[in-house]
C-alpha cells in the first residue's frame, strides 16, 4: 500500500464535494468532475479517472457520494461500460481509446453494451462465428450476437469476432469496439418468456470498423474477452442483502397475507426450509465479504452464483404455488414492452417465477458453474476436449 491512500482519497472527495456539492449538482456534471478528480475508478492511473490506489477505496468514495445525496446510478445504468469495458480498455486499449472513451462512459453520455454470446456460442463462447475480415485499414464484420443488454440504447459495443477460422477456436479471435450507430448494425428486441424484452439481438451486415478500434492484437481476442469477464465477476459479486429480502421476502409476504397461522403445515415447513436455505446462503455472502476484506478468502466466495440461481428458482416457484388459483393468472398480461429496470427486482410473483428461470442460464449456466467449482475449487480433472487442437473451421457446429 502506498503512503497514505486513505488520506489522498479523503482529500480528493472533499475537493470534489467543495466544487460540486453532490446534492446540488446535475448528475452528468458531477460524474464528470468525479472523473476529473480521479474518483471514478480509484485504481486507474491519474488522468484516466483514477488515483492509482487500491480498488477497495472505491467503496468509500461511493458511500460518501450516496450519503451526501449524490448518485452512483451510472455504475448500474451503464454497467457494461463502467463495470466491464473500462477495465478492458485500461488493460488492453490504446492511449487514444483511454482518452476518447472513459470519460463519456462514466458520465453516461455514451452507453455501452457487450457483444459476446451468439446463437451458436453460449456456454461455449469460444466457438463464436461472427467474422471480421481485414481490408487495408479497416475490418468488415458479419454475423449475429444475442442477449445484448442495453443494445438498443448503446453508442458503443464490446465485440469479439472470429478473424482466423483456420486456427483452433481460442486462437483465431480479435476484439473490437464497435459503433452501434454504424451502417449495417441492426438491433432488434428479444422477447423473453416473461413477454418483455430486456435484451436484444444484434445483426451485423458488412459493418465497417476502423483498425484503430481494435483492442489488443489480432488473434488475441480471447484473452481480452477474459479480462472483460473477470471484471464482470467483480461487478456482480460481493453484495450482501438483508435477512428475509429478495425472493424469500416475497414468499414470506405472500404467506402472511394469504395463509399465516392457519396455513397448511406442509407448506409452512416447505417455506421454512426455503427460509433456512436462503438465510444460510445469505450468511455465506456475509462470511465471504468478511474473508475478502480481512481474512483468507476460501471457497465461500465462489459458490454464491450457483446457489442463488437454483434457490431463487425454487423460491419463486413455491411463491406462485401459494397463490392458489391466482397462480393461473398473469397480472397485466404479456405486455411485449421493454422494462425500465430488471424484471428480476420488480413485478408480480408470476413474472418473477418466469424471470428466475434465466438465473441458472445467464452469467454462466449452473452446469458450467458446477464444472468450474469441480475443476478449479475441488481440483477434479476436466472433460476431454475434442475441439481443442482442431482448426475452428473443422469443428462440428449445430
Amino acid at each position: 500500500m502506498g503512503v497514505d491512500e486513505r488520506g489522498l482519497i479523503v482529500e480528493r472527495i472533499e475537493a470534489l464535494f467543495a466544487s460540486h456539492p453532490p446534492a446540488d449538482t446535475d448528475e452528468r456534471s458531477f460524474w464528470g468532475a468525479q472523473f476529473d478528480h480521479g474518483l471514478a475508478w480509484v485504481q486507474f492511473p491519474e488522468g484516466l479517472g483514477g488515483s492509482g490506489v487500491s480498488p477497495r477505496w472505491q467503496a468509500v468514495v461511493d458511500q460518501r457520494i450516496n450519503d451526501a445525496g449524490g448518485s452512483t446510478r451510472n455504475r448500474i445504468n451503464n454497467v457494461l461500460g463502467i463495470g466491464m469495458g473500462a477495465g478492458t480498455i485500461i488493460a488492453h486499449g490504446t492511449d487514444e481509446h483511454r482518452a476518447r472513451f472513459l470519460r463519456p462512459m462514466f458520465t453516461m453520455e455514451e452507453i455501452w453494451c457487450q457483444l459476446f454470446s451468439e446463437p451458436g456460442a453460449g456456454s461455449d463462447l469460444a466457438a463464436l462465428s461472427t467474422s471480421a475480415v481485414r481490408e487495408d485499414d479497416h475490418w468488415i464484420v458479419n454475423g449475429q450476437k444475442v442477449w445484448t443488454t442495453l443494445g438498443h440504447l448503446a453508442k458503443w459495443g464490446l465485440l469479439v469476432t472470429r478473424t482466423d477460422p483456420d486456427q483452433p477456436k481460442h486462437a483465431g479471435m480479435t476484439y473490437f469496439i464497435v459503433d452501434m450507430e454504424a451502417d449495417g448494425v441492426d438491433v432488434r428486441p428479444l422477447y423473453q418468456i416473461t413477454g418483455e424484452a430486456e435484451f436484444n439481438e444484434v445483426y451485423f451486415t458488412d459493418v465497417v470498423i476502423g483498425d484503430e478500434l481494435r483492442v489488443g492484437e489480432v488473434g488475441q481476442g480471447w484473452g481480452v474477452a477474459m479480462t472483460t469477464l473477470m471484471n464482470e465477476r467483480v461487478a456482480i459479486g460481493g453484495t450482501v442483502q438483508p435477512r428475509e429480502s429478495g425472493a424469500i421476502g416475497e414468499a414470506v409476504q405472500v404467506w402472511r397475507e394469504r395463509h399465516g397461522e392457519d396455513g397448511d403445515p406442509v407448506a409452512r415447513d416447505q417455506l421454512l426450509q426455503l427460509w433456512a436455505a436462503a438465510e444460510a446462503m445469505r450468511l455465506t455472502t456475509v462470511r465471504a465479504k468478511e474473508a475478502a476484506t480481512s481474512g483468507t478468502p476460501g471457497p465461500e466466495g465462489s459458490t454464491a452464483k450457483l446457489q442463488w440461481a437454483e434457490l431463487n428458482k425454487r423460491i419463486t416457484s413455491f411463491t406462485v404455488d401459494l397463490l392458489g388459483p391466482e397462480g393461473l393468472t398473469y397480472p397485466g398480461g404479456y405486455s411485449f414492452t421493454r422494462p425500465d429496470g430488471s424484471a428480476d427486482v420488480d413485478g408480480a410473483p408470476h413474472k418473477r417465477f418466469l424471470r428466475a428461470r434465466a438465473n441458472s442460464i445467464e452469467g454462466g449456466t449452473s452446469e458450467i458453474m458446477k464444472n468450474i467449482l469441480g475443476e478449479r475449487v475441488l481440483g477434479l480433472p476436466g472433460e476431454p476436449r475434442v475441439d481443442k487442437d482442431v482448426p475452428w473451421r473443422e469443428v462440428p457446429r449445430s
Partner: protein
Amino acid sequence: MSAHAAAPPTVSYVLTDEQRQLQEMVRDLFAQRAAPDRVREVMLAETPGYDDALWQELANYGLLGLTIPEAHGGSGASFAELAIVLEEAGRRLAPVPLLSSAVLGTEAVLGGATEAQAAALLPGVAAGTTRLALAHLDLGGDLLAAPGVVASRDGATWHLDGTAAYVIDGASATHLVVAARAGDDLELFVVPGDAPGVSRTPVEVLDLTRPLATVEFAGVEVAEEDRLAGGPAMAALHRALTAGVVAIAVEQVGGTAHTLEACTAYARDRIQFGRAIGSFQAVKHRLAELLVELESARSAAIHAARVLAAGEREELAIAAPLAKSYCSEVYERSAADGIQLFGGIGFTWEHDQHLYLKRAKSTKLLLGDPKHHRALLGELLAL
C-alpha cells in the same frame, strides 16, 4: 418482516491467529490419535465406550475446559474455541465424550449450579477426571426434553425413580446430570454414575461411534446439596440443549467437510472407462453441489456458534434451530451421496463412509429433528 428477522447482530466469522493455531493443533491431534483404525477399535470394544488416553490428552491441552471460567479450572475461552474443537472431532468421529460432557453437562452446570456447586464439579470436568452426561429424556423419546424421572423430597434427601432414555455416553460418565419432575417443577440433580439404585444399560445403537445408554433410577438417594440450586432448572436445561444443538451443527459441518474431501480425493484417483471418474460431470456436479451446501452449512453453524459465544440470546434463538435443521439435512445428504460416489466399496463395512452416514442420521435425530427446529423457527418468525 418480523422483529426477529429485521437486524441480525454483527459477529465476526474470521478466525483469529490464535484460533487458527488451535484449529491446526486439534486437527493434527485428531489425525494422529483418532485415525480410522483407532475409532473402530474403540467403537467395537465392550468398554469403556470412549478413548480415555485421547480424553486425557485433550484435558492436558486445556480443551475440556474452554467454556469453563478460570476460577473453576477452565481456560475461560468461549464457545467459539470449543466449536473449533467440535468441528475437528466431527471430522474424525473422534471417540471422546465432548458433546455429553464438555457441552451438555458443562452447560447445564454452568447454567444451574451455585458457585459452590460449580467449584466442586467443574475443575474435575476441565481436568478430564469428571465426565458428565445429561439424562433428560423419557422412553417416548421426543428427543428434546421430556424427563422420565420423578423426584420426591424427604427432608434433606431426594429420591429419584424412573427411566432416562437415550443418554449420550450415559454408561461411561462418572456423573449424570438428571432432569427430573418434582411436582409441577423441573429439577436438575448431579448423581454419581455408580450411585446405589442406578443401573445403566448400553443401547444397541445405529451410530457405534456415539454410545447411548438407558439409565434406570430405583429409589436413588440424592442429597439436597446435589440439586443444582443456582437458578431455574428449566432455564439451565434449555441453555444446555441449545448449546448441544449448536455443537451438533458444528460437528455435522466437520463430518460433511470430511466426506467432501474423501470423495473428491477418490474421484481424482478412481479410474473407470479410462478416465478419473471425477472428470465425468455426473460425478463432478454432485461434488460441486456438495461444496455449495457445505459452505452454507458452515455459515449457518459458525453463525450460531459465534452468536452463542457473544451471548446474543435473541439471535441465538433463531441461529440455533436454523443451524441444526440445515446442517442435519446437508450432512445426511452428503454422507449418503458419499456412499454412492464410492460405489461398491462405499457399501462395505471395511470402508469408513458408513460411519459418517450413521453419525449423520443419528445427529439429525438427536435433540430435535429438522422439522422440529423449523417449527421453532416458524414460531419465532411468526410464519
